[in-house]
């Protein structure tokens, strides 16, 4: 424990760097996967995108971080390299969530929106996107947790972040250092995950637990059942992931 207290500044510094390494890929992955996920859901032929994304996710992280510099020309120890790699993983995960989420929006709802005069652009942003929110949020939560954890692999290559605590702790035989790295990584993942949940509640008040009971008309309760069913499905799917 002594080691941790006397090196608190060092650990804090690594934590902040790690945070800066983990957050941009999550934001980028979400933005990039929106159009791709929409495409994968919209046209049957483009469902193949999901297979490619699944296959891409099979690529182990360290080899990906090694191969990327040869393709995009970054330096091997550059944080940009790690951010690009993590963004690609995030997109690979998120594209399916977006496609599934948009696919779960009921046809009736979409057609009603068209019937009352929404253009397809308006319909997407005002009807489909909000209704797809809960399922996309579930996907994004998986992305944020795995991103924080995967970012430590950069430490193998010497990229600054919590991963350096593992290498350094192993080489200098300081188990406390490694343990501190593991605990902080997990805590950071859980905190960011909790922040996403809070953000989701703020942006999607209709999805609040218990909100369904307030719905009086039969129609809205059916709808919340539908969203409930799809979001109940999603955790089960993701649970099998590791």
């Amino acid at each position, binding site marked *: 424990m002594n080691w941790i207290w006397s090196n608190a500044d060092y650990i804090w510094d690594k934590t902040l760097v790690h945070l800066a390494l983990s957050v941009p890929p999550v934001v980028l992955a979400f933005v990039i996967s929106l159009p791709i996920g929409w495409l994968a859901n919209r046209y*049957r032929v483009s*469902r193949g995108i*999901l*297979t490619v*994304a*699944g*296959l891409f*996710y*099979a*690529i*182990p*992280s*360290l*080899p*990906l971080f*090694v*191969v990327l510099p*040869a393709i995009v020309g970054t330096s*091997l120890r550059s944080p940009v390299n790690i951010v690009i790699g993590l963004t690609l993983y995030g997109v690979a*995960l998120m594209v*399916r*969530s977006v496609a599934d989420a948009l*696919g779960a929006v009921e046809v009736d709802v979409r057609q009603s929106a068209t019937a009352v005069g929404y253009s397809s652009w308006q319909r997407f942003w005002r009807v489909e996107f909000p209704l797809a929110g809960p399922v996309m949020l579930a*996907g994004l939560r*998986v992305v944020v*947790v*795995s991103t*924080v*954890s995967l970012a*430590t*692999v950069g*430490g*193998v*290559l010497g990229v600054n972040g*919590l*991963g350096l*605590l*593992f*290498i350094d*702790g*192993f080489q200098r*035989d*300081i*188990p406390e250092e*490694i*343990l501190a*790295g*593991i605990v902080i*990584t*997990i805590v950071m*993942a*859980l905190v960011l995950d909790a922040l996403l949940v809070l953000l989701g509640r703020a942006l999607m008040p209709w999805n609040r637990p218990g909100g369904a009971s307030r719905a009086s008309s039969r129609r809205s309760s059916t709808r919340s059942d539908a969203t409930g069913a799809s979001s109940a499905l999603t*955790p*089960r*799917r*993701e*649970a*099998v*992931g*590791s």
Partner: protein
Amino acid sequence: MNFFAEAFAFIGDGSSWAGPNGIPTRLGEHLWYSVVAVALASVVAVPVGFAIGHTGKGRAIAVAVSGGARALPTFGVITLIAGLVGIGLTAPMTAFVILAIPSVLAGAYAGFEAVDRSTVDAARAVGMTEWQIVTRVEVPLGLPLLIGGIRSAVLQVVATATLATIVGSGGLGSYIIIGLRANDYGRMLAGSILVIVLAVALEAVFSVVQRLVVPAGVTAGRPTDSRARVSRRAPGTATPLQEEGTQ
């Protein structure tokens, strides 16, 4: 692009294929670790997962374990255990088993959970014992999801085995680490390409296996679905990897 030329020259070079540091040896180690670790993890996780899936008890724990495992930095776990038990095979193997358990567990219980309750009730109604329900109804119907869990465990371990060489136990990752220390990027790239090919090949094999283990009765019942539905389900079963081995 000349880096890739260098990497392929290394892979193509006859001397890379011989001796204790040769590609076949390293590939063998890599595969061996992965198979043994997932087998050991399955011995523990499959019965527990089946028990949770069948009784519905302990589900919250299983969800917490499989969800929480995602946050666990694998690289940290390996170095921590290696620091405690010393360099050698014990450390990485222990880490691999720990890392493989959540995926297999989740696959096992999710497979049981995905079985329609009315199917189970029907089995009970025609007089099957609980044991028969498990072995003849729930296991076959849940098998695709269990295979999906094993698939993500294998991929997880194949990925993590790349890091095992840091604590001194070979595998294909050794080319990456040796290359890193010797500033030989071509060699690092060669090692990375080999691991990627291995992982993608395993992923492809598993996706075929997963489709083959769907019981005939289940596929026979599907043609009543509309075409759109079928095509939507197909990718679901085909790429469980989605959320790091979804489904």
